[in-house]
């Protein structure tokens, strides 16, 4: 029974994530003065990709790459509370577990992309991992004050400790929240940090050799990734929400991200890393100082 519930839950979140992707395309189209595709377009895309008859693979790891990527993100989802909704595993989603599970996906994809012996893919992965040196640390430092303030490392407890509207993490720690928003942009790989994908430069990077069902799995990975990444931010900074408001919250955060994405050019990789070590790092440090002063 509970296993069935697992799968339904996963399916639901995946579909919602795909719809978010559709919305992103629609919004971008509107900004560019176009109609854009229907918002269920990504679902059709995924269906189509899974329907492809013959695809190529470059070896075992190349095939398993997307599988591992989806595994990683789906396990993260199960350890992440969606607002008030407790994580399915009765585990009280610990921050570090989530942070470490979050890198399983990129790692799986990195291994898969690496085996294709296409230098575009490897260059992209080298860029993606280097970018982590920028945003991961900012994200971590930005969320630390909240966890420190409520004296727990459990995401669930942090949600519960925040309380209703004026007691949200975002309002108590505005500086950290801002830093976390900066980090989120890189975490989701949207412009100006779209360095790893860069379709016009390195031919969509890690995906360069993936087609058919592999690309389909990667799309699913991306879809769940959107919910997990924005959801992490909503959980930590927007207090206890029921599941409806949780999704509205993630949507708002995601909306901000795609608005920035729509109007931004792309950084070079070293510019991006350096950018993160500038103002966002300063903000993150200020946020930590704030919580020290409060104590």
């Amino acid at each position, binding site marked *: 029974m509970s296993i069935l519930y*697992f*799968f339904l839950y996963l399916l639901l979140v995946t579909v919602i994530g795909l719809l978010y992707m559709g919305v992103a395309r629609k919004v971008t189209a509107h900004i560019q003065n176009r109609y854009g595709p229907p918002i269920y377009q990504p679902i059709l895309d995924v269906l189509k990709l*899974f*329907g492809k008859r*013959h*695809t190529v*693979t*470059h*070896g*075992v*790891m190349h*095939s398993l790459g*997307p599988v591992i990527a989806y*595994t990683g993100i*789906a*396990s993260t989802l199960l*350890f992440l509370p969606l607002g008030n909704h407790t994580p399915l595993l009765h*585990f*009280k989603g*610990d921050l*570090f*577990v989530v942070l*470490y599970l979050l*890198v399983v996906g990129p790692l799986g994809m*990195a*291994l898969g992309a*690496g*085996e294709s*012996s*296409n*230098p*575009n893919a*490897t*260059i992209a*992965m*080298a860029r993606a*991992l280097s970018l*982590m*040196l920028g945003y*991961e*640390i900012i994200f971590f*430092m930005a969320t630390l*004050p909240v*966890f*420190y303030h409520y*004296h*727990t*490392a459990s995401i669930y407890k942090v949600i519960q400790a925040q309380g209703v509207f004026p007691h949200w993490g975002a309002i108590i720690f505005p500086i950290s929240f801002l830093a976390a928003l900066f980090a989120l942009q890189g975490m989701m790989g949207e412009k100006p940090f779209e360095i790893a994908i860069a379709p016009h430069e390195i031919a969509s990077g890690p995906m360069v*050799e993936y087609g*058919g*069902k592999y690309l389909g*799995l990667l799309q699913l990975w991306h879809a769940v990734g959107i919910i997990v990444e924005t959801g992490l931010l909503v959980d930590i900074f927007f207090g206890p929400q029921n599941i409806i408001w949780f999704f509205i919250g993630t949507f708002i955060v995601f909306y901000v991200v795609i608005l920035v994405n729509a109007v931004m050019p792309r950084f*070079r*990789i*070293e510019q991006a*890393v*350096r950018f993160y070590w500038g103002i966002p790092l300063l903000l993150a440090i200020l946020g*930590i100082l704030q*919580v*020290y002063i409060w104590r």
Partner: protein
Amino acid sequence: MAMFLLLLIIGLTGLLAFILGPIKVLRNIISLIGAIGGLLYFVFKIRPGQAYALNIKIYNVHFGTGMSALSIFFGIILLGLFLIFLIASFHEDNDGAYYMFSFFSLLGALGVLFAKDLISFFFFFETMSLFSFLIVLKGNGETSHRSAFKYVMWSAFGAYAFLLGTFLKVNYTHSVMITDISYLGGNIKLWILILLLTPFMVKTALMPFHLWAPGAYTDSKDTYTVFLSGGLSKIGVFGYFIALFNVFSQIAVLYPWLLKVFAYIGAITASLAGIYAFMQDDAKKLLAYSSISQLGYVAVGFGVYSHFSVVAALFHALGHAVFESLLFLVVAGVYYRTKTHDLRKMGGLIKKMPLSFIGLLFGIIATSGIPPTIGFPSKWLLYEAIILKNDLFLVSLVFFASITAFLYSYKLIHSIFLGKLHKEHEHIKEAPFGYGFGIVVLLIPLFVLGTNPGIVVKPIDYIVRFYLKPDLAYNLTNMTTPLGHVNFPAIGITMTLLFTLSFIIYLIFGKSYRAAQEDNYTATEWIDKDFGLHYGGEFYGFMRKAFGKPLTWSFEKILNACLKVVSFLGEIARGFYMGDARVYLFYIILFFAIIVYIMGGKL
């Protein structure tokens, strides 16, 4: 007596191996029997609490040996790794002396674990350093002489600091036994502590003392590096424990700032070594820096100095022994087949050496600390311990270091196993039995302890509980700190379950066929089979730009500058003694002139 017998077994085996040197088979069998016998003897005969005192009353000095639970913990790591090293090393071309040296270095390391007084501690420590130096000297690189020299110089530096500390201690306490000296007055105990810590900082290659490590790790024979990095560096961790807890039980009260500095040194080591690691192009150099980086976490654990941070440090020491040895072993196996360590010259070996690939894959997963492997519990504990100590900057620094681990891990696995297969490697086979055996054996604790950390946390907790207030609740599979709670197998089970699910999704849809190596998207251009498509050189080259100048700074340069100053001064000093007659004449005149000047008035 059991301990002496063990040391005797190890020593005798070493001698026998030397004598039987030319007869390869016999030598191998003898050393194998010795190592296995030693391990079994250790596991079954040696118990904590066994002690033996040798009363040679020179100047009222007692010598003593004894076993603690900690010694057993480290002893098993050492002997286990030694066995793995030994089996793999039979594939290499070694002489009898090599085996004798390695057995003696093991003997020294075990002796350190048994020692209860500082003099025998020093003696065994030096034995270990000396023989591992001799082995580095026999290494295969062209620069091995230089590296070995560096290694022995740094070891000597540490050893003399230790000796000085011992003398100071004896001077003040009139005892060479490893006993508490917190009660001493004045600043002298601080000096003793720092002097006693120095050799261990050298041994674990903490940052200002790390310069020997990349060279020694790179230039020693590949299989011995497994033992050198995984095993012998643990002696340094053991030493931290001795110095911080046995010699100095109240350091947290007396010198909290010292611990803080220690923790920050550890964190900076972990971060900087991580950065250096992903800029290396030599597989073993990369691993050497990664080893330094990982041992930085151990120092952080000791520096934070709470119950479960020390548990984390010891657990991480064990984890390091497992995954770092695994990585070194795989690289050794790859070297055995390809005869190169240069990451730019390898690639695509996954199809030829699948077992090695699996070994390296899980090795890097553990190095990065991803659950459910052995790397995760210790890192998790460490983070929570640091947050509990209210140091958010330290925890950020440690987190930064753990991100660098992803970078160098990926570089390693990609450059060796993924990407394009080179033409000259087309007929390569899987690494031979000795390497494969070690890989399989090391994979077991990697997963078992990753999902059931309680197995090891229990004895570690039993050791640490004695010194620090326990605040970690655990059982076989769960751990609860005041901050959070983790159920380790749950992570593993979830991942397995979801992996199955995604794998089923993968299986039911569409067929796929295997593409040839050249069948890549190259902007639809045709490429030659030998065309260098592998992205191996200048991996992360752009990070050089991102870091800019600071990356070019290094301790080595500072030391070289010091060297220049010293040799300049030396040149001047030499002038005093070895100048020609005119110089002496000049000195004499100068001497008289000064005398005349000083006495001026009175003359």
